């Protein structure tokens, strides 16, 4: 309960710094997205070959 509450607080602060003010219900809906994608991104960062430059927006 405490961990979830602090996660929501952190998200609320991050949103507020960008001028966006979601409700607790909004943030609770976002949390599962982030809990799925952030670890997957961390794994992706570990497996990316070093020195790979970003693709450009119009690049394939």
């Amino acid at each position: 309960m405490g961990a979830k509450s602090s996660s929501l607080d952190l998200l609320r602060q991050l949103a507020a710094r960008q001028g966006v003010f979601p409700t607790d219900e909004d943030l609770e809906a976002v949390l599962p997205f982030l809990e799925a994608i952030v670890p997957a991104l961390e794994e992706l960062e570990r497996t990316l070959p070093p020195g790979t430059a970003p693709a450009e927006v119009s690049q394939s």
Partner: protein
Amino acid sequence: MSLAGLAERLRVGELSPREATASYLERIERANPHLNAYITVRAEEALAEAESAPRGALYGVPLAVKDVIDVAGTPTTAASRILADNVPQHDADCVARLRAAGAVILGKLNTHEFAFGATTTSPRFGPARNPWSTDRICGGSSGGSGAAAAADLAAGTLGTDTAGSIRIPACFCGVTGLRPSTGLVSNDGVVPVSWTFDAVGPIARSAEDCSLLLEAIAPRYRPEEGGVRGLRIGVVEALFERANPDVAAVASMALDELSALGVRLERTKAPLLEQAATILQAVMLPEAAQAHLGWLRTRLEDYGADVRARLLAGLLLPSTAHVTGQRARRWYCDGLRRLFDRFDLLAAPEMPIVAPSIGEQTVEVNAKSIPYRLCLMPFNSPWTLAGLPVLSVPCGFVQGLPVGLALVGRRFHDATVLRTGRAFQEAMDWHERRPTLAFDADGKASYTRG
């Protein structure tokens, strides 16, 4: 009637643009209350425009466009409360090109809110209903385009595709849809989701019809003639294994037919299939959040809950996510390019399932219950990442509902993809199957499976 057939009748004067337009408007009036495919019908404007249509390749052909594509003087709502009063002054580039080719724009088609989801169940306008079974979704986000093409409420339609939004409704509605190569069609005048991935493209009855529409909206596109003998198609094994067995079996039979036409099939593995959805989201979510930042600050409560959650996820991802995504995209594209050294096309089921019921959040895939939005990603994200053209062609039915085969080509080889789809459709008639539209004594429409 096919778009190509109608265009020919109009060209030789068997039918006038006004008669064709009036016929579609009558059908829309009777059927749309059942399907909710249209958000706005431009009845008076379309009839007036039919009188002065230019004599181009689409002379007098009545079409409709997804309601994220601007038509001057007609609201672009993106199926959202936020844009309820948004009336653009100019046509989107693709609409201007359709008009220059002689097309008549019947109206604006239902979409997932801001084209940011795959069910087309707008909280503002209600769900678009699948003509094959009106208690089922059309897919999305171009769900109204799929429904209108399937129910013959326009001779052809335009949709947009960021992560599957043309291919999925084409598949679920039993029609043909092309996500063109990213960058082939201008996005000018189209409400953005993601600058990296957005693509405008056709949904119509056949590959031939899609080719005619693409010719009108993409100046660089040149159709190819001829058969498919000798083309090398890589069969993406993992996606056949991930699809429901009955869906995979139908798609496999379509491959058999392509083989009989002289295509060379070989099973293959696509690179980074498991990572593709993560890479796509890392790029798409922050771009969508950026596109919506002003409204996130001032109109947050006016979004539907699902779109609001996705946009907030984009806002709250780590600041490195987008760069990580673009780096991984380059890595992914390099791997895929090597695969296309061996193949002209790739093939897979377009979706692992048939259309779910409206409101169904989870679906059964290979005896596992998973969220609908997760089941579609492995089948659509990989090709989006590399900006490749993908054609979804109807290839059979499961439980009376359509199944689609995805044909994936090299970037800017859209003509090869469409040529292959056309050859398949000359051999098979799945794209000719239509849900039956019937009217009761009060003139109300109902649909039964044909």
